[in-house]
């Protein structure tokens, strides 16, 4: 059998380019995750407030994110906004916008869930000890929610990284796109390169995501 294309990766700067492509995805993910966590905390707290209008708006927001594929959102923002508003958003900015939009909803729901899961008696017993509302929140409620939230937020990072693979569809040159370019450039010399190169991309994603999700699982078990 002819070579399966692993050798192609060691030609010139090919492997380095692949890693740079991967870094593009990771960079977009990290920026989006940080924004999502910050905005998610706010949205999550807003969701616990009893206000009908606020509730309805957030509900529509959450459902939109739940139902629409991220790819559709990406298309709407990247192609649609230029059309409707005449904005010229770069592909990277569109990606970060969409993933933050999505991540904030996910994070907000997690924050709401963990605040709601703290028994009311915890609030009451803190108040009974003479603490005021802010003290209760700060010393009693938040420490308990943060513990629950950390593993879940870490999990969000892996989901974000996996989802960023979609950005090649709006023309961002990330790892998959680089892989395609490498395969294309070596079509003549190494016709089977697709196997080796895509296998390596597969493994790269796994190597990045697996330790992170193990960490999340570990923390979840430890702090359960």
């Amino acid at each position, binding site marked *: 059998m002819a070579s399966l294309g692993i050798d192609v990766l060691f030609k010139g700067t090919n492997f380095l380019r692949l890693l740079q492509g991967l870094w593009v995805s990771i960079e977009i993910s990290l920026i989006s995750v940080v924004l999502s966590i910050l905005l998610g905390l706010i949205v999550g707290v807003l969701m616990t407030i009893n206000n009908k209008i606020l509730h309805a708006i957030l509900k529509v927001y959450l459902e939109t994110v739940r139902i629409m594929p991220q790819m559709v959102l990406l*298309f709407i923002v990247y*192609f649609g906004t230029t059309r409707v508003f005449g904005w010229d958003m770069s592909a990277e900015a569109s990606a970060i916008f969409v993933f933050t939009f999505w991540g904030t909803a996910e994070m907000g729901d997690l924050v709401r869930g963990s605040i709601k899961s703290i028994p009311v008696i915890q609030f009451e017993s803190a108040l009974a000890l003479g603490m005021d509302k802010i003290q209760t929140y700060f010393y009693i409620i938040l420490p308990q929610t943060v513990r629950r939230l950390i593993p879940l937020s870490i999990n969000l990072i892996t989901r974000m990284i996996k989802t960023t693979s979609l950005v090649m569809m709006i023309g961002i040159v990330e790892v*998959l796109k680089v892989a395609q370019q490498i395969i294309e450039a070596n079509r003549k010399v190494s*016709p*089977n390169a697709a196997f080796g190169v895509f296998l390596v991309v597969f493994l790269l994603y*796994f190597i990045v995501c697996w330790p992170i999700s193990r960490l999340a699982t570990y923390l979840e078990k430890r702090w359960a």
Partner: protein
Amino acid sequence: MDKDILIEYLPLYKDALFLTLKIGWQGIFLAFLIGLIGSAILHFKVRVLKSIVGVYIEIFRNTPLLVQLFFIYFALPKVGIQITAESCGVLGLGLLGGAYMIETFRSGVEAIPVIQTESAASLGMNQFQILWYVILPQAISISVPGLLANVIFLLKETSVFSTISLMDLMFTAKDLIGMYAKTIECLFLLVVFYLIMLLPISIIGAVVERRMRYGQFGD
């Protein structure tokens, strides 16, 4: 928005929806099967197979579907495994979904107290009878909200099928935008058709979850 354009494109989107649904449901069915078998293997702690299932779950939960599809569709033929785009979609979705379904079923099974197993055992049932008549019916009904969430997740994931040139909704939208530059109309139809596909399931999911929370057998 141009109404004539919408009407003109409608049939194309309809065909795309049917293709998405066809591949989607086949993939989900495969995922369901893998989920049942895999969780049974984990439940019975079958030697060797148990480790294989564990590795499978980790691999498919920690890589994007897009990369899995690329690997199946573009890489495997190089080692002699030819597969059509449609089968690739079904297989990719099934393998990805299976990894999630196993976990869903397993947490359902784990939610059933051990003493239920023991009381079934004390009636002389064997392991398979216990699983089939006592544990699974309870586990599946506990898992229903999780299963529906998986179904929604998987149907959403079908949006990457366009990358292996399956003419799904995404492909159709992209194709039409590229060809005729009717961006707004195309995106509008895209959203509408995804809503048609996913909104009913989402609503069913919400209803079921509420019923699960407040109702039990015997209502």
